[in-house]
């Protein structure tokens, strides 16, 4: 459906007689915040994963904790894109929209493709709910839904029917509407429901009646598809297996992967403790919450009184020989600015995770954006270079976190990880890495007092020694006032300051020699057009380039993990393309950096709407650029 190759064929064993075959499908569950959409979505994801689909998911919550029921701003949704093909994004357009109330329909309908399917709970389209959603009349009765296939079902009533025999109250019964809808969708896509049944049984262990009700509802929804006789025929689809690399898989969100990556990095460094100091803020908090439950893995989490204290505590921890990590999103990172300067000056390891969100200021706290690249690279007083890296996908967060730990400890420097609201909650299947095969990068603390000077640098990395309080004979003083380039004592000497400024810059620039050369994700290493991105736009960019190439366009996709310093071959590589398009969810930040560094007339595609790119927008721009190229 997201691609053009859908056709109808007769299916052999298992499902209903006629199922359309699709390469990939985008489904969104939408309902009120209290309707359990995240849960239905997560289970649907799991069943698809078990059925061998590749997939990508994108949950979307309201900013309010519990907005009044039935309102448009109280709608919660969960989108999943799954299929036989390499699925890289949660999908531009919906093929199927499940809407459990009018507000959910109102808010989500614009994303449904023409001809797509709406599954609507007609029982919820009451006058009151319609009014709350600001519908004049019922969209189920006027021509609002004319361009779509509509399956109206009184899911509330069907759910009540399903659990009638269990003697539940109507209120309790209605809580399971999500399970009924899930059951129906599992049927539609010919998916098993056993994993969900098992999960429900485990979840409600001890409360068998609740488990029974949920399972009964799920089964009822599933059975309905099989047996129904209805004015609207319910379509069935076959989405075949993806060709995933063999191995053991799980789904992983960016937050999970980041947390695990940090822990894995900690192990690889050989440092015994991570002090993760943070202050709650959307969408960064989940990382803090996850790590708060990993105490037995050497993680001490500290909810500080504010972001400044969090950054400072992480610095204090690194000073004392732990791995100091701090995390926030834009406004909180802004507050850490001064402290990060101290880490630059004292050359201590520090990992800073920025889960970017819409801004400026409080902005759009739950929405995604790539607006903090400038802040990470340039946003401090004076010349204060740091390393900056960004994950491309939820699973990539694992490796990026490990890389951050490696760079921070090897180069005695702050390292920014720029993730975002999208990556934090989006999920994808993940081939669980064999931890024993990951490269270790053991850290050597300085122990030997002989010839020790706190600012004498390692010849190759230019890092100063990590000399930790408690070590006899290494007593020394460091601080934020400029330091003598060897002894670390306060120095106001002009030439020393010039030299130290140079050394700080050179140390970070030198990282370029220690990271891979920039590769091309897709397409040739030269040509008329390169699409260059960073961070969470990876999937959209990749898909847009893939589709364009499939249509015969000569375009390549380059995706940067390392934003400071850039990979050493980047200038050469970009120089081999006639045009460079830099799509970003900001006003053109990487764009400015590439232009100033390499003096190439790169062009931006900038969308700042709190959401991932649509693949089609990028495709359209590729077409436009290649055409102007031709006609120019």
């Amino acid at each position, binding site marked *: 459906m997201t691609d053009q190759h859908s056709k109808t064929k007769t299916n052999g064993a298992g499902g209903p007689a006629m199922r359309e075959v699709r390469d990939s499908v985008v489904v969104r569950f939408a309902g009120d915040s209290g309707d359990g959409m995240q849960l239905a979505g997560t289970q649907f994801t799991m069943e698809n994963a078990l059925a061998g689909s590749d997939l990508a998911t994108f949950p979307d919550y309201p900013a309010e904790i519990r907005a009044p029921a039935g309102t448009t701003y109280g709608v919660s949704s969960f989108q999943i894109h799954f299929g036989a093909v390499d699925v890289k994004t949660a999908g531009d357009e919906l093929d199927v929209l499940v809407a459990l109330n009018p507000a959910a329909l109102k808010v989500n309908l614009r994303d449904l493709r023409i001809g797509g399917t709406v599954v609507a709970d007609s029982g919820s389209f009451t006058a009151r709910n319609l009014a709350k959603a600001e519908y004049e009349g019922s969209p189920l009765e006027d021509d609002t839904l004319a361009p779509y296939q509509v399956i109206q079902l009184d899911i509330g009533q069907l759910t009540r029917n399903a659990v009638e025999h269990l003697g539940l109250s109507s209120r309790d019964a209605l809580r399971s509407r999500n399970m009924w809808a899930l059951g129906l969708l599992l049927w539609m896509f010919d998916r098993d429901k056993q*994993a969900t049944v098992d999960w429900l049984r485990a979840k409600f262990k001890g409360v068998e009646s609740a488990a029974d009700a949920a399972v009964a509802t799920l089964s009822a929804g599933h059975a309905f598809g099989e047996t129904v006789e209805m004015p609207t025929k319910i379509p069935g689809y076959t989405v075949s297996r993806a060709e995933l690399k063999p191995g053991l898989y799980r789904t992983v969100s960016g937050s999970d992967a980041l947390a695990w990556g940090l822990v894995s990095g900690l192990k690889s460094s050989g440092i015994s403790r991570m002090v993760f100091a943070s202050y709650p803020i959307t969408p960064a908090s989940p990382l803090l919450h996850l790590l708060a439950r990993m105490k037995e893995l050497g993680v001490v989490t500290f909810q500080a009184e504010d972001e400044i204290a969090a950054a*400072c505590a992480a610095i204090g921890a690194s*000073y*004392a020989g732990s791995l100091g990590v701090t995390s926030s999103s834009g406004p909180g990172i802004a507050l850490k600015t001064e402290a990060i300067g101290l880490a630059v000056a004292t050359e201590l390891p520090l990992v800073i995770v920025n889960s970017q969100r819409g801004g400026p200021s409080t902005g759009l706290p739950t929405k995604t954006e790539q607006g903090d690249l400038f802040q990470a690279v340039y946003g401090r007083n004076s010349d204060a270079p740091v390393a900056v890296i960004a994950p491309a996908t939820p699973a990539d967060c694992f490796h990026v976190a490990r890389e951050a730990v490696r760079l921070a400890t090897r180069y005695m420097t702050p390292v920014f990880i720029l993730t975002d609201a999208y990556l934090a909650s989006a999920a994808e299947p993940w081939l669980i890495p064999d*931890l024993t095969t990951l490269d270790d990068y053991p850290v050597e603390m300085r122990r030997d007092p002989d010839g020790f000077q706190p600012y004498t640098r390692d010849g190759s990395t230019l890092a100063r020694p990590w000399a930790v309080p408690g*070590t006899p004979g290494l007593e020394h003083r460091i*601080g934020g006032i400029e330091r003598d380039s060897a002894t670390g004592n306060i120095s106001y000497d002009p030439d020393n300051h010039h030299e130290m400024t140079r050394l700080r810059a050179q140390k970070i620039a030198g990282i370029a020699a220690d990271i891979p050369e920039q590769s091309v994700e897709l397409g040739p290493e030269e040509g008329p057009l390169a699409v260059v991105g960073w961070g969470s736009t990876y999937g959209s960019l990749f898909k847009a380039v893939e589709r364009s190439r499939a249509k015969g366009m000569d375009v390549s996709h380059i995706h940067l993990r390392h934003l400071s310093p850039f990979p050493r071959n980047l200038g050469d590589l970009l120089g081999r393309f006639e045009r460079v398009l830099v799509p970003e969810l900001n006003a053109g930040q990487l764009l400015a950096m590439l232009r100033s560094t390499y003096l190439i007339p790169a062009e931006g595609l900038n969308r700042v709407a709190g959401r991932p790119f649509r693949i089609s927008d990028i495709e359209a721009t590729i077409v436009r650029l290649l055409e102007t190229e031709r006609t120019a």
Partner: protein
Amino acid sequence: MSHSVLPQLKPKDFASDQEVRWCPGCGDYAILKAIQKTLSELEVPRENSVFISGIGCSSRFPYYMATYGFHTIHGRAPAVATGTKLANPDLDVWVITGDGDGLSIGGNHLVHALRRNIDLNIILFNNEIYGLTKGQVSPTSKRGTLSPTTPRGSVANPISPATMALGVGARFVARSVDINQAHLVEVLKQAHANAGTSFVEIFQNCIVFNDATFADFTDKAVAKENQLLVEDGKPLLFGAERDRGLRLDPATWTLEVVRPGENGVRSEDVLVHDETNRTVATMLAGLEPPEFPMALGVLYRDPAATFDQQVLAQVEPESEGRGLADLLYGGRTWKVGD
């Protein structure tokens, strides 16, 4: 942690090779000496002591100690020290701060360190002025102080560091004076002995920008008369002859100065210092010359479990438990291919 076995260190063994750069006559010199003496008498190994400071004249302190030292940024030393302590609770961590550093920009970190009761010794050099930036008023400056930012006199009420500490739940609050080495060393030892956040306010003379602001109780001529050196379990008597004392007036819930033996006042009427009574400690912290003596010594002490101990206790028990692999493989997984 392996400590070097050292012969007992002298105060000067705690002095670094850096030239001390305070103004001649600054009270900071005396405090430096007192702290070096304290460490030598405590017989702590140099490598285990860490001095963490913010920014200010006072915060230059760590450079002059032959221990580990970290001169951080303005107001943030308690936060940095908290991280240091969570990383390694075995270290002896001293926070050096000033009235501007610790109560103006850094007030909140101080408050939260105190309420958490993390095991730090926080030493606040109170000179009632911003020394390093050349003499502006600080949160402890007296009303009416003339300074570059208050050319017509300051109009804000000063904060009492000790009262504030008590108000946010501090469990060790003490005070001393820069030039009274014996008393200061004793107070610092008590602070060091206390597990949890030990808060010590030292009245320190800034000879350049706020000279003699504490003269009414530190001048040799009046010190004996106007200092009340409190001691747990001892009556709150003061004066060269210890002939005056504090009594509670139960009608007004206030303290009053009395002379035992005069006007029918008996010795038993004089309040006995109870370090664990927060109410009395708060009243003592609020006394000021000329009506009252300045109360010095350990005003309040009531130890409790420290933050670092408790946080790390939540870590340790299961340390031998799950590994990362358990987490990764422990969720809902599935196999692809074979």
